């Protein structure tokens, strides 16, 4: 899932302080699970924002909150369409995709992010999320025993480990596991350590995100005349 965390309240307040009526919109999917932008968090952020605005002599800015099932898909934004007309700005508590989906749906309205989107990751332990995938577009997890060197190795080393692996931890931080140690442990458990000795070919970065927004197109699923937008 996509993992995000809340922006500081003063940062959000400064974005909306010149508006009159602001709708804070939570999202019921990833950011609910990572406790950053669901219904509960929308209530907390809304309350904190109202207090913060009042203390900054902007108490006339009205802040209401609501949460929709999913912000990153237009069909789910339908429920907001009518209500959004009553507000002159929206703060989205979704990931960057959700914020942009709302901005596309409401062209004349200011849309601001309430969260900082962090990464694609999983829950490591209660309250701790870790990055697992860099969405590079060319997955090689099969070759690396299910441990991604691109997302999880500080040097993105495809032929590792480097000399900075110490007792299973990365030299960058004692809280960061060495991806290559994890790989080695899994390979050893499968009695396939020798496969790690093969030289890995270079990553195909043409699929990564350095050429503008990427698209996935399924021609068979496209409706005639409604193909991908340019």
């Amino acid at each position, binding site marked *: 899932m996509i993992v995000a965390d809340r922006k500081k309240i003063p940062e959000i307040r400064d974005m909306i302080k010149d508006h009159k009526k602001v709708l804070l919109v939570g999202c019921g999917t990833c950011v609910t699970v990572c406790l950053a932008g669901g219904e*509960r968090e929308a209530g907390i952020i809304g309350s904190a924002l109202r207090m913060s605005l009042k203390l900054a002599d902007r108490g006339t800015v009205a802040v209401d909150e609501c949460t929709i099932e999913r912000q990153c898909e237009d069909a789910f934004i339908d429920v907001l369409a009518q209500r959004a007309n009553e507000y002159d700005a929206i703060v989205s508590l979704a990931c960057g995709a959700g914020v942009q989906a709302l901005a596309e749906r409401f062209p004349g309205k200011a849309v601001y992010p309430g969260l900082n989107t962090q990464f694609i990751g999983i829950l490591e332990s209660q309250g701790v999320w870790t990055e697992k995938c860099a969405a590079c577009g060319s997955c090689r997890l099969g070759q690396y025993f299910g441990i991604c060197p691109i997302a999880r190795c500080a040097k993105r080393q495809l032929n590792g480990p480097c000399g900075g692996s110490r007792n299973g931890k990365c030299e960058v931080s004692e809280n960061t596991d060495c991806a290559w140690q994890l790989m080695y442990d899994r390979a050893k458990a499968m009695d396939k350590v020798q496969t790690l000795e093969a030289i890995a070919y270079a990553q195909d970065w043409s699929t990564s995100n350095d050429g503008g927004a990427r698209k996935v197109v399924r021609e068979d699923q496209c409706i005639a005349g409604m193909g991908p937008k340019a």
Partner: protein
Amino acid sequence: MKKNMSRKPVILAFCCHYCAYAAADMAGSMRLSYPSNVRVLRFPCTGKIEENHILAAFEKGVDGVLVAGCLEGGCHFLEGNLRARKRVERVKQVLREIGVEPERLEMFNLSSAEGPRFAEIVKEMNNRITPLGPSPLRKDDAVLEAGIAQMDMEAQLAIQGGTK
């Protein structure tokens, strides 16, 4: 000080039904004296208290909030009081961010047999909050009273839901 605003700080005590609320009751039975400006709200467990309940209290203009749960290890629901302590810490962080003194909020632990301790806690919070002056979000007394009444009703609904 604005008009229609009492000089005493208004403190809300979010009390667990199984300990602090009973302790408050005992303090009354023992005829112990403690500041009259504390208002007790009863919850089925401090674990039932969400961050936005506490923030709502500050938003409605109270000057201080104390959350009183069972002794650690003694929660009727095992770890509700431990969760409450973490939530209190998180709300303090939010208060700090928005410029409200985090000292206006505190978590305490006590057992149902500690009536005198309840009186002490209330005095301690009152002594801490009085020098801070009214909350910068303080509203006039009538609005504040209406807000507290609404919170009390919500807490009662939580009790009914929690003891079915």
